[in-house]
């Protein structure tokens, strides 16, 4: 992990260091503002200048949650592997068994998909599905493909589904149109949002409609953050790859320990609470509620 004094080597962070060397927390808007003034740098100042012009990191991903100009995040291969480990541990908490299938109704560019398998992105040694001996399949993340998602469920019998929020209703309607129930077919469904997470109420509603436990995913790609809802305490468990701190503003800031090529230090995820202590499932868990 880049140390605070190293951050001065990154233009975005250099501007955010206070006189006493502390980094001011930042959010997507700050990154967009920086990108707007530095259009020649696809990484918005978060990759060292010498690596932007040459030795580009082996993995670059365009952020989905920002528009114009495009902003990219980057990782070197070992970092990509550590990020995939976060995903594998998240799925493990929800329950998986070797030889089962996990299906995605999401863009293939979502980290939730990319990190699943070394077959989806180069330089990833072992994706989350590879680690857990799961078969993975991704359906294109557009509503018009809802019927194809039903065909996937029917034929491949996935035990786990990852759905993007805006596709849940088309999928539910496609299931209802053919009278297919997911109960007893699917162990859990996890819902992703481009930035942030869906509300508990929405998850409960979806769970009732789809007759399957629905877990929420907290996602902030700019900070490489992926956190899954705990089935027991319903808070988001933060993986060991992240550091978290409460801010005076009532927000929570996240630092990704594995990100060096494009550091993610003190990313402000917004209004949230760090909970004290772990929960019944994991007494040592660091948890956040938002």
């Amino acid at each position: 992990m880049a140390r605070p004094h190293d951050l001065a080597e990154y233009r975005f962070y250099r501007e955010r260091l206070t006189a006493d060397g502390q980094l001011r927390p930042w959010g997507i808007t700050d990154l967009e503002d920086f990108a707007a003034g530095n259009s020649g740098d696809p990484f918005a100042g978060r990759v060292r200048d010498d690596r932007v012009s040459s030795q580009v990191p082996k993995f670059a991903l365009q952020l989905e949650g920002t528009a114009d100009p495009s902003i990219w995040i980057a990782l070197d291969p070992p970092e990509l592997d550590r990020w995939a480990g976060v995903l594998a541990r998240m799925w493990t908490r929800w329950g998986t068994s070797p030889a089962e299938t996990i299906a995605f109704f999401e863009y293939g560019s979502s980290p939730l998909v990319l990190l699943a398998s070394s077959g989806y992105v180069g330089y990833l040694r072992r994706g989350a599905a590879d680690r857990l001996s799961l078969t993975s399949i991704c359906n294109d993340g557009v509503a018009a493909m809802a019927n194809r998602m039903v065909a996937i469920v029917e034929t491949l019998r996935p035990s786990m589904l990852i759905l993007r929020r805006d596709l849940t209703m088309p999928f539910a309607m496609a299931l209802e149109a053919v009278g297919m129930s997911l109960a007893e077919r699917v162990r859990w469904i996890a819902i992703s949002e481009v930035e942030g997470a869906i509300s508990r109420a929405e998850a409960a509603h979806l769970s009732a409609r789809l007759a399957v436990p629905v877990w929420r995913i907290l996602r902030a790609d700019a900070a490489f953050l992926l956190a899954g809802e705990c089935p027991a305490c319903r808070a988001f468990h933060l993986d060991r790859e992240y550091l978290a701190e409460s801010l005076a503003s009532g927000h929570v800031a996240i630092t990704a320990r594995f990100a060096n090529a494009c550091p993610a230090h003190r990313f402000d995820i917004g209004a949230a609470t760090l909970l004290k202590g772990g929960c019944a499932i994991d007494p040592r868990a660091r948890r956040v509620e938002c």
Partner: protein
Amino acid sequence: MLKSALAEPFDDLDRLSPEALRQWWTRKLKRALRLAFEELPFYRNRFNAAGFDPTRFRTLDDLRAVPICNKEDLLAAARDRENFKSYVAGPVSPMTVSLSSGTSGTTFVMHTRRWRKLQGYSSSRAHWWAGLRPGTPLIMSAPAWHAYASIQPSIAMHFGSPCVVVSGTFLPRFADRIVDAILAFHPRFLTMFLPMVFSILATARRQGLSGEKLFAGVETLVVTGAPITPGMRAHLQELTKVKRVTELAGSSENLLAVDCIHAHGLHLVPDTCYAEVIDRKTGLPMPDGERGSVVHSSVIAAGSLFLRYDGGDVGILDGSPCTCGLPSPRIKLLGRWDDCFTVGPHTMLPYDIQLALESDVPELLGTAFVISKEGLASGTLRLLLVEPENSAADLLDAARSKLSRRFEVPVEISAVRDLPLRFKGVPPILSEREAASSV
């Protein structure tokens, strides 16, 4: 033969003589057929029913005794839970599964780690032929559901290329993101589905960027997903100013062929598949250059295995030596039997109309058009064509009379104000109502 005209070999397989390559293919297919018989119920049952004994397989001509399978057969296997993986070779977990969709249904193609390794190497060969060299970033150009997405990572790693992942998916509404990726990472080599090329050009134009500016630095543009005519290749070169526009043809079921440096046809990629072009009715091989059904057999005996698979494509094969020196025969996929139509004395594909139009009236090169279903039903070749900007009436008159003479049928051409960019280079056969509502 001039040395400069020879393709740079990827490895020793490219240095084989055509005859040695046939022997290599024979060995590989013998192994695949044996494995299929011994381990895969889907094939064992079919071989038994056809009386085919893999131990008697000696030459490529013996393939004719292997029963042909098609998508319907795979769909039937997929519907049967017990037989679902009956054509998947090797350890079946963990795998990635890609989708092959079409009007007849979705089939699932299983990719094991071994398949990805072998296919990745073979696809690296294809990309090498196409002009990819180490050091350029690779913009990932296929969504994760597609088979091509399963091999792009291997290609990137083979060439040490950074993987650039564009957010969203590969639909025209995401073209601006691809434009951003090209401008940010300056790839020297770019692969793109043909309709997307026109979408990103249109997006760039809206941003005040010419094709030349957008593609500055791109040395090779590989287009895939549709057969391109010589005129379409020239049109793309004109629009982008990219020196080398290369066609790559492939299918989710392990068919792969790519242009060599001379672009005189697409060479079969030998460590992916062997292909035949056969008479649709008799099953006998078609003479070189004559159209028939493309039937291919994968030489990668891992994951979903396709042996004598008829994917519904129409193609021609050319076994004559190529000036590039690559030993594998050349193949051209022209379209699908499903898109074949008969009008007057001719049975044709949309490709034929595209080719005729660009040959007879070069000014109409690159114009999007639709072949009217109603026209075909009444024995008329009726085209709905985006109105050219200049001399429209003269051009359309010329096209009408020349096409009519060429095809010996009445031809009507109606100018329309607009058609979707996805129709450029891939003219569909639609009812006129469908065409109007597609804009």
